[in-house]
């Protein structure tokens, strides 16, 4: 549902069905809405059978990479004699993304249930939900839900009377975007600085506390109870595009848009209808200029590319970008692309953990040059320098934060070169003082 707006008839609310309904937050309310039936059923099944259903459903990771969830779970070898761990990544910090926040605020028990099923399926007795420190309300809701679940015997040494142990703990982060990277999250949970680790070893071999670990996004785990309740076929049938992308996806829509909020649609939905019908298009009197469809780390689309996009993992790639986390950032014609790309570069410079040289130096220099251009002090050589730095920042570091900083710069220069050049030739930002809604044509001519 388009929370905080009313659900649109073309949405398919599964995860977002109870957004905005405070009664769904309590254990009693959640049970009335069918909660914990899936866990009850799962605990009677063989873990491998649960993994099989999730594999069959086609569910893929909703945090950004889109890795098949069932396949990830199958990497956890049963009976290896080691403790296994499940980590739930609730460090939602990707600019443009705020879907996990709403899942935890409105339906915390959905996530507790998803974590419990996931933990059982991978042979783990313990699941940690790592929530970013700024999310004070989601932290409180999740803490309350976990407490209720323990009090009712849903969690603990004898989960739902099954004789199986499932513990879920909420862990509060302390302000670091990089801790959303899976290995950085594990370091942070262990009480270390949040530096990403070199892979291999992959988490399924040596993850949290050096033990086999699976890490899943909030939205991914929240989808699991629905799949157990309704079956893999039901989930797989929710597909209007490529059959490799199934189910529903929550999109967080923000920036210059008439109705910002969370929208849930079936995979393969047309992006043009999504932007204009569901979200109401750009603010009055404005036109869309650019869309960043999957959180700030994916390539920027021109509005023409966005309007041609089919919303699934493959559809976004076909139009030069990625589905990512589903954080749709809309930018209208009154905005300066150079300024916004400079701001994104500053974000990455601030969030770099600084262990890799390419990232530590690259993000800082990119920010410096971008801000110089924005201030009207750039030169033509700067554009080549930026692209050269971006090349050195791509595919050369332990994690992809460095690549993520390069992405908006490269796609921005490719697609909005006229704006960069206008800053350089006019030696000022053409948008500063330009009439809102005039767009770059007016601004550049001014």
């Amino acid at each position, binding site marked *: 549902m388009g929370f*905080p707006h009313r659900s649109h008839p073309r949405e398919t609310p599964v995860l977002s069905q109870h957004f905005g309904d405070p009664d769904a937050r309590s254990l009693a309310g959640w049970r009335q809405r069918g909660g914990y039936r899936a866990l009850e059923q799962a605990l009677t099944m063989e873990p491998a059978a649960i993994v099989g259903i999730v594999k069959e459903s086609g569910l893929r990771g909703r945090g950004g990479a889109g890795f098949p969830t069932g396949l990830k779970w199958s990497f956890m070898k049963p009976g290896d004699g080691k*403790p296994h761990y499940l980590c739930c990544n609730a460090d*939602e*910090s*990707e*600019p*443009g*993304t*705020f879907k*996990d*926040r709403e899942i935890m605020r409105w339906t915390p028990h959905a996530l507790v249930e998803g974590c419990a099923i996931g933990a059982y399926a991978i042979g783990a007795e313990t699941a940690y939900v790592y929530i*970013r*420190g*700024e*999310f*004070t309300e989601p932290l409180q809701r999740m803490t309350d839900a976990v407490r209720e679940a323990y009090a009712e015997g849903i969690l603990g040494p004898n989960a739902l009377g099954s004789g199986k142990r499932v*513990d879920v*703990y909420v*862990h*509060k*982060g*302390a*302000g*670091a*975007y990089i801790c959303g990277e899976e290995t950085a999250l594990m370091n*942070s*949970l*262990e*009480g*270390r*600085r*949040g530096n990403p680790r070199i892979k291999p070893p992959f988490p399924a071999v040596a993850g949290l*506390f050096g033990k086999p670990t699976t890490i899943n996004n909030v939205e991914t785990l929240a989808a699991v109870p629905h799949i157990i309740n309704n079956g893999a076929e039901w989930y797989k049938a929710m597909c209007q595009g490529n059959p490799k992308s199934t189910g529903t996806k929550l999109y*967080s*829509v*923000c*920036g*210059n848009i008439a109705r*910002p*909020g*969370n929208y849930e649609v079936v995979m393969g939905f047309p992006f043009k209808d999504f932007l204009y019908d569901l979200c109401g298009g750009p603010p009055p009197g404005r036109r869309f200029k650019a869309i960043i469809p999957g959180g*700030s780390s994916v390539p920027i689309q021109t509005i023409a590319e966005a309007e041609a996009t089919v919303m699934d993992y493959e559809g976004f790639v076909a139009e030069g970008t990625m589905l990512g986390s589903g*954080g749709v*950032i809309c930018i*209208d014609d009154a*905005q300066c692309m150079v*300024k*916004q790309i400079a*701001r*994104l570069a*500053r*974000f990455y*410079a*601030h*969030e770099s*953990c600084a262990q890799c040289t390419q990232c530590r130096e690259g993000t*800082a*220099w990119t*920010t*410096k040059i971008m801000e110089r251009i924005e201030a009207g002090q750039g030169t033509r050589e700067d554009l080549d320098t930026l692209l050269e730095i971006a090349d050195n920042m791509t595919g050369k570091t332990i994690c992809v934060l460095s690549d993520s900083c390069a992405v908006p710069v490269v796609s921005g220069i490719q697609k909005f070169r006229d704006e960069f050049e206008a800053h350089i030739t006019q030696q000022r930002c053409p948008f500063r003082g330009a009439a809102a809604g005039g767009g770059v044509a007016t601004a550049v001519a001014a």
Partner: protein
Amino acid sequence: MSAPPTDSGSSSLTELERAPRSDAHMRAEDYQPVFTGPARAELNELLTHYPTKMAALLPALWIVQRERGWVSEPAMAEVAAVLGLTPAYVKGVVTFYTMYHQHPVGKYFVQVCTTSPCNVCGAEDVVRAILKHSGAGELGVTSGDGRFTVIEVECLGACGFATPVMINEDFIESVSAERVPEILDSLP
């Protein structure tokens, strides 16, 4: 405090750089142990969540900040002793994360998101309005009456509710420059 010149590629100071160099900011309570009584019991319970003591470091630091308002060096040393770590290690972790205050802040710690999704919705106007109306005047500097410390923060994860502003633990959504006086004046 004025900003020293920097050539790091970023014009904003880290909290460490802003930290006062003398101990004039230390209060008597900052030399008292934190982990006694209920706080110690809370930490002991937390330790049961993890297979290592070190994993309780972030939660322990959160307890310190809740009890004292910031994380002082004596507190870091105490946490280190309780968890079997070295003070230098603890400081290394504290300085990695942006939410632990390494010096005292105002009664109201105000964080304004200015990352791109909020930026295109006028977040910079909100920052200017807050700096002006709070009397803080400058980012990271506490207002003369000790009430406000204002910082820009990177993405608060509430982009559809631009501009989100956090005041201590409270998350205020959809703040515009016009709403700022009303919001700040309503604080006790």
